[in-house]
């Protein structure tokens, strides 16, 4: 039985496919491969994510800037973590001795932990995938994850939910149709294998068989003498044999592929929907080309063909209006990349959904007018957020958002002026406070959405939201002028520190030692990064060549058809 139940509390009866529901994770007493899974004393019996809702974006299980106590104040029920990042430090070979479940290792037993292969927050280009492996990027360079590795990792980690092994095309944003078809097929094949393994059956038998046959063929070619191989016979295990302990208490979300080809998206969704044992679906829009409208159309193509009774997790739809439009298409789950990116820019969100349910009417109007006034002289020419790097906040001894109950704003304890000071002083508390606020407001945004779906005002309030807050300005990656100045002066100071006689600031030997070590580590890291870049370049070139070849073949095929 699935450890995960999804219930729809209210299906929007209006124009949209929006629905209000819950994802409930129940810790079961199944025969799991990880003996510790059920012994987590602190693991709550029942953990819930209200939908539409979010998994918190994390780096190795830590939500950026938030310590475990502050994290618990944010009001999200789940965390998303990627194998890509985790494997940097804990390899599959070391995992058999791992005395933990991932939840326990990351201290996230009270939340629903979703573990997927790659980072969900953005599109990072990696070299191509093959029949045998998918490529990922770690800080030690590009690495390849085979299905076998993946299964090892899943057994060791034993997360609450795992994303199925899948072929997400990440070496290019506009793959050819043939490549996309391959991605859909590979993903289905791998999904079937993962589903078998999850039940405790040998899902890899067919791969081994194929491998052996290939070897045999090449050997035969070499020797020209037929070999009647016993090995072949011995590896052709029947796929119905139970080989390992099942891990049915781990929820499984299947990836739906199809890139920019509508018919492939439909096919992927329909075929994936046929598989039994899948607890939810993941649609990754990060790698999709085109305008927001184009991408939403592709998302719709998937959504329309997925079973209605299972949750749908969408990557890459992060800005508030994208979230609203995705929900209207029937999306249930997102991630918190948006508040994180705002925080990295020094921005604090001011938007709220459905002013009727905002903390108090006056508060939201106040902040809206405040930001409108601000916009004339600041870099935030919109009313959805302010940039705390802006000088105008230096003497604003008011909370980010009047009436906000987040850690930073609550009781007026921390002000815009203080955060402006912290940013300019290059102090880490700045991002702690900004993240607290932005995460809290994002959580509130979803809470208000849920309420509006329940009360049947979602479509109307979505429209109102878009009228009031417009669309998210393109994130240019440009650094705020004030930030640039701070960083320039910092690097100047660091240069001064490292040259000349030892300043009394770092006079004690342990300190100097630590500084030296840090510099060494920095150098090593830089060298590593350089190597990595070179590697990525090399692989990119190779994959480029492959792609060209593929295109050529496709063209040939088309030509021959014509």
């Amino acid at each position: 039985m699935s450890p995960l139940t999804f219930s729809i509390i209210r299906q929007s009866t209006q124009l949209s496919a929006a629905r209000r529901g819950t994802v409930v994770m129940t810790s079961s007493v199944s025969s799991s491969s990880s003996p510790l899974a059920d012994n987590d004393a602190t693991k709550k019996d029942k953990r819930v994510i209200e939908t539409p809702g979010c998994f918190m974006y994390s780096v190795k299980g830590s939500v950026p800037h938030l310590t475990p106590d502050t994290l618990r104040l944010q009001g999200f029920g789940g965390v998303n973590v990627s194998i890509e990042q985790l494997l940097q430090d804990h390899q599959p070979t070391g995992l058999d001795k791992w005395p933990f479940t991932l939840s326990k290792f990351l201290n996230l037993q009270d939340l629903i932990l979703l573990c997927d292969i790659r980072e969900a927050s953005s599109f990072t280009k990696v070299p191509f995938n093959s029949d045998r492996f998918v490529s990922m990027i770690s800080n030690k360079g590009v690495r390849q994850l085979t299905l076998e590795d993946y299964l090892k990792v899943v057994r060791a980690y034993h997360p609450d939910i795992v994303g199925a092994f899948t072929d997400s095309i990440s070496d290019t944003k506009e793959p050819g149709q043939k490549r996309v078809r391959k991605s859909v097929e590979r993903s289905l094949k791998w999904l079937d294998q993962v589903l078998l393994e999850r039940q405790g059956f040998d899902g890899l038998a067919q791969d081994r068989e194929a491998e052996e046959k290939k070897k045999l063929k090449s050997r035969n070619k070499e020797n020209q003498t037929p070999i009647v191989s016993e090995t072949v016979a011995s590896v052709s295990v029947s796929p119905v044999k139970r080989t390992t302990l099942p891990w049915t208490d781990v929820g499984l979300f299947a990836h739906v592929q199809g890139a920019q080809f509508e018919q492939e998206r439909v096919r992927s969704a329909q075929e994936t929907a046929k598989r039994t044992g899948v607890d939810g679906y993941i649609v990754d829009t990060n790698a999709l080309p085109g305008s927001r409208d184009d991408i939403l159309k592709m998302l719709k193509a998937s959504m329309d063909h997925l079973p209605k009774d299972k949750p749908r997790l969408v990557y890459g739809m992060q800005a508030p209006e994208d979230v609203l439009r995705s929900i209207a298409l029937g999306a249930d789950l997102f991630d918190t990349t948006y508040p994180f990116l705002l925080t990295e820019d020094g921005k604090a969100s001011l938007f709220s959904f459905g002013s009727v349910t905002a903390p108090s009417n006056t508060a939201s109007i106040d902040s809206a007018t405040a930001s409108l006034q601000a916009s004339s002289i600041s870099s935030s020419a919109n009313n959805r957020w302010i940039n705390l790097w802006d000088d105008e906040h230096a003497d604003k001894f008011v909370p980010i958002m009047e009436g906000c109950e987040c850690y930073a704003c609550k009781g007026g304890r921390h002000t815009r002026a203080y955060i402006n000071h912290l940013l300019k002083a290059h102090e880490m508390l700045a991002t702690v406070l900004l993240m607290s606020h932005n995460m809290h407001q994002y959580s509130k945004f979803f809470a208000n959405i849920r309420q509006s779906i329940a009360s049947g005002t979602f479509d109307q309030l979505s429209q109102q939201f878009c009228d009031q807050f417009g669309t998210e300005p393109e994130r240019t990656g440009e650094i705020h002028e004030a930030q640039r100045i701070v960083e320039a002066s910092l690097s100047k100071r660091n240069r001064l520190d490292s040259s000349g006689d030892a300043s009394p600031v770092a006079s004690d030997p342990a300190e100097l030692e630590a500084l030296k070590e840090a510099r060494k580590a920095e150098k090593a890291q830089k060298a590593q990064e350089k190597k990595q870049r070179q590697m990525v370049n090399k692989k990119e070139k190779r994959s480029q060549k492959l792609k060209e070849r593929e295109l050529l073949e496709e063209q040939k095929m088309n030509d021959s058809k014509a």
Partner: protein
Amino acid sequence: MKSALTWDVLAKCSTTKARAAVLTLPHGPVNAPVFMPVGTQGTLKGITPEQIEGLGCQIMLNNTYHLGLRPGQELLDQCGGAHVFQGWNRNLLTDSGGFQMVSLLKLAEITEDGVQFESPHDGSLMLLTPEHSMSLQNSIGADIMMQLDDVVSSLTTGPRVEEAMWRSIRWLDRCIKAHKKPETQNLFAIIQGGLDPNLRKVCIDEMVKRDTPGYAIGGLSGGEEKDKFWRVVSQCTDLMPRNKPIYCMGVGYAEDLVVCVALGVDMFDCVFPTRTARFGNALTSKGTLSLRQAKFKDDFRPIEEGCDCIACKSYTRAYLYTVVTKETVGCHLISIHNTAYQLRLMRQIRESVIEDRFPQFIHKFFKDLFVEKSAYPEWAVNALKSVNVDLMGGEEASK
């Protein structure tokens, strides 16, 4: 002069010069001996004020030089001081700004007027006078403020040391005169005189005459020999009034704290615990763990068994290994642990003084930290011997 504090000694160690006291300041009580974490720019390395309170911290340090530059005096006046500005409702101590200038700015020059330095913003010449320092510290509103003193390196010898000592006394007079809020802010004098016992004595005699609410031992921790360091500290505590708190500036290594408490010091501060956290170094009673080392990859123990900080309650060393020096959270967690460690050490010292078992505590502390007696630092052995604790002779000898 006026005082805005009370100093109640609860217990005195019957062997050493240690004492346990309650220092009551405008923003609440402080249990002494106390370690004060350093929040240079009005924040402690990513730890929220709520978390700092949770660690039991009752007093924190801010640096006048930094706050004077940013947010600046005008904004501090506008918002009502540094407590409000940083959302910290407990006590604050500020330095005079002089030390920061001399140490951070190579071009600082000291004249009778004050410390002349080049503005880090526009390169123009600026002057920090005792009057200006007081004015800044009055704007910051710290519960304890320090006089501007003439700082010389503890390695300096010759007439410059005496000059600095006399100038510090003259500047103390100017500070007392310029101090606008003696009812709500306590001004501490700073004893100078380098490593010369005679100069130290003259300085103490003169400064005690000024009757400030507390005294600091300045001009140390600048790389001098430890054997000279402790002798100066011990001489000072002998000569200083026993009815006032004694603060030893810039001391924060665990063994230094234990020794200095035994020598009669009540207050300490140091950037070390939080600064070293940034490099992934966690402090424990058995020494420092450099958590960025690969040997911690499969170490599934907490940093320190029995520590109830959020890092130790939540994570193993193996996990911390994956985030220290890479994620800000890693830095926050180690900073929290290190601060918790320092404050716990002071609590343990204090409890042992109250229960009059401080010598036994010292024995155990050194055994845990250094394991072998041969590894005990000689200066610490000498210093403790001077207050009747014989580390080499074993616990029995010092009872």
